[in-house]
Structures are given as structure tokens and as C-alpha cells.
């Protein structure tokens, strides 16, 4: 017999901590840690709500499982991006990301640039 206000309060708390974690960190991976905390807060809330009598289709636990899966997929891709950033710039400091491009390097004699104005 458990009062469901406690898990709800914990979920709210974790969400707030996760938001702080996203904004307070420079390192890209630590920002991702904050994102994970937010996701887990959502998961806890889902489980809590799904525990109430009368929850249809076992939606609570099932959706939680889905969210875990999606979080896994997301963090895989996110960390791949972070690794490319590290390889290119040598650091993953999110406050100082230089402009990047994937265009090929221009030839020494570059073509004259066409103006982008449209003459009416």
C-alpha cells in the first residue's frame, strides 16, 4: 500500500535536477547526463500513473519500456555526434563550438560568387 504522491514528487525533483544539469554543464557528455535524468523522471511518472487501478492496456509499464528503448537509441546517435565533434575540433566544450562545414575545400581560383539578389 503505497501513496503515489511520493513517486510523483520524486519525478518532479528529478526533472528539475535534470534541467539544471543540461544548463549548468559545458561538457557535451555531461549535458547528455542531464537529459538522461529528465527521461528517467518521465519514466517514473509513467510507472506511477500506470500503477493506478484502472489504467488501460498496461500503458504505464509498456510505455516506460518504450521510452527506455528510445533513450538508448538517442544516446547512441548523440554520442556519435559528440565523438565527431571531438575528432574535428579537439574538445567538446559546448560554449565554444567553432563553425563547421562539410563542404569540400574551395579551389585556389574560386569562381566569382553570384549575387543572391533577385532583380525584379
Amino acid at each position, binding site marked *: 500500500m503505497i501513496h503515489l504522491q511520493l*513517486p510523483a514528487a520524486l519525478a518532479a525533483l528529478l526533472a528539475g535536477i*535534470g534541467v539544471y544539469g543540461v544548463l549548468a554543464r559545458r561538457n557535451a557528455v555531461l549535458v547528455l547526463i542531464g537529459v538522461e535524468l529528465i527521461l*528517467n523522471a518521465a519514466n517514473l511518472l509513467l510507472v506511477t500513473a500506470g500503477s493506478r487501478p484502472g489504467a488501460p492496456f*498496461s500503458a504505464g509499464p509498456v510505455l516506460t519500456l518504450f521510452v527506455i528503448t528510445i533513450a*538508448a537509441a538517442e544516446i547512441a*546517435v548523440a554520442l556519435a555526434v559528440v565523438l565527431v565533434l571531438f575528432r574535428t575540433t579537439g574538445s567538446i*566544450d559546448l560554449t565554444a563550438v567553432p563553425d563547421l562545414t562539410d563542404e569540400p575545400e574551395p579551389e585556389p581560383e574560386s569562381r566569382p560568387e553570384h549575387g543572391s539578389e533577385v532583380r525584379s
Partner: protein
Amino acid sequence: MTTRDIVFAAVGAITALSALLSVTTKHVVHAALWLLVSLGTLAGCYLVLGQELVGLVQLLVYVGAIVVLVLFALMLTRAPIGPHAEIDTPAWQRVVGAVLGAATTALLGSLLLPLFSGATVDLAGGAPGGGTPAIAQAIFGTWVWPFELLSVLLLVALIGAFTVSRLVLKREDGVRPRPREVRR
């Protein structure tokens, strides 16, 4: 306050505290390790709530895979060992973050606590909602389409991670990254 309440309160307190430590510590690797503790105790919360499958999957996937992945990423990006002063964003941004975090907590709390007031679940008669067999029925019954789509999503994420990691990017200002010495 029942027994479960007290147990939950204890486990939950550890979860919250370790999460807080994770986002405030000055050690990069410690942050990941505190995350590990936080997610592990969260699995314990699930168990207290009676959701065994979710708790175990949480341990397997989140703690066993995702946090490990995070640690690998930290190592591959040469996370500095020891306290690292530059780990945090500028002070004003941290203040904004704290405000926003508090606002988020307050918002959610003000919504949820009245919503769940007086709600209780009796776990004496087994897990709420029927337990693991019921969940299995639900997944392969009602939720089969999202389930399949999720597997496609995982495949896409896999291929995406491969592709992204093979991207060749250049800095627009032409500076090549120099190999960083291991710093104390």
C-alpha cells in the same frame, strides 16, 4: 505512512541525492558514476512500486548499457581526471539553470501532487495491472505496432550512429585539432 512508503522514501532520497551530486560535481568521471548510482536506485524505486519487469530492464539497459556508453564516450573524449574547474558553464547561466530547474520542479509538483493526492495502490494482491504476463500480453497485443516500429528505430539509430561517426568535418577557420597532452 506504510512500510513501503518509508522504504520508497529512503530509496528515493538516495536517487535524488545522487542525481544532484551527478550534476554538481567537479569531476567529470564522478558525474557519470553518480548517474550510475542514481539510475540503479531508481530501478529499486520501480521494484518498490511493484513493477519488476521495468526495474530489471532499467538495470539492464540504462545502467548496464547506457551509462557504460557514457563512460566510454568520456574516455574517448579524453575527459580530464580529477577536479576540473572548467566543467561548469558561466555563473549566470548556472543561476538561470537553477531557476529553471526549480521552476520545472514547482510546475510539475503543483500539478502532480494534487493529482495524486489520496491515490494509493494496494500491492498485496500482486503487481498492479497484472504483473509481467499482463505486460507481455499488452506489448504483443495492443502495442505490437509501436513495438515493431521501435525495432526499426533501433536499426535506424544504429546505422545513423555509424554514418555520423564517419562524417568528415572541417572547421571553417581551417584550424586542425592538435593532439592534446594528458593533463594532470
